[in-house]
């Protein structure tokens, strides 16, 4: 309990991390509660009201090239971006942690084989894999989660593997083995829980990266089909018009992406410092 309090206290003392958390909560409230206060039609296009500038009556942020209210669209898009980002980041963390824990715990040739596989996947740029896979299938939200999760599990896998390698020789793990505990128990009850700091920190970075991946994929033309949207799709959809002076099509979604990715990074940094403080204070 004391350790947990220490982590919380040191996290709160990190102003950037707290700011990140506040920004994230505000963006989530904007995306989920916003439409209750500002209901808009985000399914039917309204070409008569296309590309209205910000400040137009009834459209504080203007409208898109298809006449959607931009403020309302940002809310709907934020939901997709956050959902896909968080789900893909968590999936990658889950898979990567399991993979890394097994590889590090068993060591030897199991570890060698499993790590060469990650080396090989890591050698192929994530964006290349994403594009090849996305070119084969029609993207949808669950599929984006699966595809991004499938390329993003490598970094948690390597981090957890490194920790598992040192954890497996600790006395309490040895003691448990002597008492007849099996490998499954060792990995699930002793290795994984002890890497939780690394995993939690990495998960926040994974979510930030996943949101960026969604944006890159939609820039390359591989995104959720309309009328659904996300911030990345909005941003890349506005690119064609931005050079003609319709700046409001790209600035709001662009700022939203920068804010949410920045927020997750700040939170991750704060968490890392907080966990390191705990490690430093723990008697050796």
């Amino acid at each position, binding site marked *: 309990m004391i350790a947990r309090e220490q982590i919380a206290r040191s996290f709160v003392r990190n102003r950037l991390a707290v700011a990140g958390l506040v920004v994230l909560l505000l963006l989530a409230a904007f995306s989920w509660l916003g439409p209750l206060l500002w209901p808009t039609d985000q399914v039917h296009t309204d070409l008569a009201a296309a590309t209205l500038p910000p400040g137009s009556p009834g459209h504080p942020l203007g409208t898109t090239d298809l006449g959607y209210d931009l403020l309302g669209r940002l809310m709907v898009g934020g939901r997709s971006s956050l959902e896909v980002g968080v789900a893909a980041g968590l999936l990658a963390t889950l898979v990567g942690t399991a993979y890394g824990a097994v590889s590090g715990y068993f060591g030897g040739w199991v570890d060698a084989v499993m790590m*060469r596989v990650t080396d090989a996947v890591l050698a192929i*740029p994530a964006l290349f894999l994403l594009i*090849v896979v996305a*070119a084969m299938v029609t993207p949808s939200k669950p599929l984006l989660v699966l595809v991004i999760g499938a390329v993003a599990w490598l970094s948690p896998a390597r981090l957890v593997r490194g920790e598992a390698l040192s954890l497996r020789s600790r006395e309490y793990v040895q003691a448990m083995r002597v008492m007849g505990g099996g490998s499954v128990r060792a990995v699930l009850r002793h290795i994984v829980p002890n890497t939780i700091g690394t995993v939690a920190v990495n998960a926040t970075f994974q979510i930030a990266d996943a949101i960026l991946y969604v944006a890159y994929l939609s*820039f*390359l033309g591989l995104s959720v089909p309309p009328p659904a949207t996300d911030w990345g799709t909005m941003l890349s959809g506005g690119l064609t018009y931005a050079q003609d002076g319709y700046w409001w099509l790209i600035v709001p979604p662009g700022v939203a*992406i920068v804010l949410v990715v920045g927020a997750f990074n700040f939170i991750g940094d704060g968490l890392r410092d907080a966990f390191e403080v705990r490690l430093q204070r723990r008697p050796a």
Partner: protein
Amino acid sequence: MTRFLIRRTLQALVVLLLVTVIVFALLHALPGGPARAILGPRASLPQIEQFNHDQGFDQPLPVQYLSYLWHLLGGDLGQSYRLNQPVLDLLAQRIPKTLVLTCSATLLAVAVAVPLGVLQAVRRGRFTDHLLTGLSFLAYATPAFFLGLVLIILFAQTWPLLPAEAPQSAGLGGVFAGFGGLLLPICTLAAGMIAAFSRYLRSSVLDNLTEDYVRTARSKGQSERRVLVRHVLRNALIPVVTLLGMYLPALFGGTVVVESLFNYPGTGLLFWSAAQSSDFPVLLGVTLVVAAATVLGSLLADLVYALLDPRIRTVR
């Protein structure tokens, strides 16, 4: 050293072989197979069978893999479905251009990130440090295509200083003649690297500043500048070699985005247009070459690291 060299090279070969397995598996994971993707949804069953027979897709998978590998060893990466040219020829035209882009961006990134990282470490906890930290987080959180577009609007439209499009010429001479058109793509590609490298160098310099050898140098009465440049920076720069190797995949990924935004006919644009037209031999050929470059790059980084830092050889 020799043992380390042999071991590390063997590892790289195994990884390369695994990459070919992954690429081969991707080719065969296509829904309905490559025939469906190429001939379209209206192709008749006999047409598909004919295509599969011509391409050798009706043979058992292990046989196909071995023949794929055999062709690879002979430098045959297959034939583009859309452009009807050997993938190897396409790559030979495009790779030099991508190299010009990536090498320039890397040079720029290192040239900017090293002083920035040192400055941050020396001024840690002060305003300069916080400002630069904020800026590098901003650079990291901005999608490259958004940054590139903002640069185009600012420096090609509002103040028309630079062209918005990269040089289009087929030869390298034309590319260098129109180098002004490459400045915006280079900056776009370098921004993320600058953020990552300067963050890394900041903590690397900070770690080194607490080492014993720094105290020794200071107690001998050396100036702070000399301590920083001669002792700290030299040691802090060694891990940057590894970082460069690790950053290669992200760099190649960035070229896809930057080359398609600025319409620069390198491997990234080739890859992107191949994805648009389901030109799988090109997609997989580019993937394979880029992955091989990454494996070789990180092998090289490890070897250079071992040369610079003798400790690594004995630890292993």
